[in-house]
């Protein structure tokens, strides 16, 4: 899922420094799964902001709510009756949330409480790791389910680069060298020859490099 990390309390306080009445909106989607923007985290953020502002002697009124998702207009619509009652609204959803909210409610100010980072999954309780770079042309089947685009620091298609140290990437001791894993897996499977071909250069047009991307399901689109 989409993983994010909460912004520092200072950054968030700064965003709402001229507000006296705000709403914090959480999301039951990805940010709940990675424990950064669900119900609990909304409550914690609200309490923390209130405590900090009370201490400053400038109390802040904070309301809390949770949407099923912030990436579907039907759910965004659910706060239409109250959204303009506040000086500002903080969204704890991924980068999509505050944007959808801003589009739906152009008269209100929406602030992102989290920094959206990557597509990943839980590798241990409380730890999420990047697995996918959204390149738009998935090739992991060539590498036995290991993605060199997302997991190689240099996105090499013909690695390894030779800078790894005991299976760890040259950039950090706690980052695995995915090419080390790929080669070893191929060796185990007796398929090292798979790696002898020169994999051709990637077409980055389907990735972010090609510009804004769109996904269409013709069978679902309502016309007329």
């Amino acid at each position, binding site marked *: 899922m989409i993983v994010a990390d909460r912004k*520092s*309390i*200072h950054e968030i*306080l700064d965003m709402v420094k001229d507000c006296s009445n705000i709403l914090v909106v959480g999301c039951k989607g990805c940010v709940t799964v990675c424990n950064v923007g669900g119900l*609990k985290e909304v*409550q*914690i953020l609200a*309490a*923390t902001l*209130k*405590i*900090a502002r*009370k*201490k400053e*002697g400038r*109390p802040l009124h904070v309301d809390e709510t949770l949407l099923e998702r912030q990436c579907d207009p039907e759910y965004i619509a659910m706060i239409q009756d109250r959204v303009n009652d506040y000086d500002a609204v903080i969204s704890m959803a991924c980068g999509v949330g505050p944007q959808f909210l801003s589009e739906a409610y152009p008269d209100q100010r929406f602030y992102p409480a989290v920094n959206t980072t990557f597509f990943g999954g839980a590798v241990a309780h409380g730890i999420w790791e990047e697995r996918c770079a959204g390149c738009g042309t998935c090739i992991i089947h060539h590498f036995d389910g290991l993605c060199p685009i997302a997991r190689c620091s240099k996105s090499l298609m013909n690695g390894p680069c030779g800078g790894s140290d005991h299976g760890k990437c040259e950039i950090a001791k706690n980052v695995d060298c995915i090419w080390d894993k790929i080669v070893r897996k191929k060796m185990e499977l007796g398929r090292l020859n798979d790696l002898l071909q020169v994999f051709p250069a990637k077409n980055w047009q389907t990735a972010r490099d090609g510009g804004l991307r769109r996904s269409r399901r013709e069978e679902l689109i309502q016309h007329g």
Partner: protein
Amino acid sequence: MTEPFEPTLIAFCCKYCAYAAADLAGSMRLNYPSNVKITQVPCTGRVDIIHLLKAFEDGADGVYVAGCMEGDCHFVSGNLKAKKRVAYVQKTLEEIGIEPDRIDMFNLSSAMGPRFAEIAIQMTERIRKLGPTPLASSSQTCPTQEGMP
């Protein structure tokens, strides 16, 4: 004439150890300050970050969580979860300029009546020295969660 500051502390005590120790302290007629308002929980693992923050929000000068000895938690590792949550709140308080020492975690067994009293005395002293909560609302108006044993 201004009255000397009397801190209000909220203590989340687990039923199996800390609260039992509090009971024992009571039977042993040990004195400890009435500043400490005890709240019984089935396990300190039940205490979440929001409970700790709310205590401060509502005006507590100090907060502590008292659970079983590490390794002896009645529910295996509830006290370890609580320890991490207390640490999280300490970090949060520090980030917003409030003394992280206002919150702490203690471990004791149900037989440790005197230790319970000692913790209550020490924590009350610590908070008295730190002074009233920096929040504008008066610490005297903090609602008690439960009566003393």
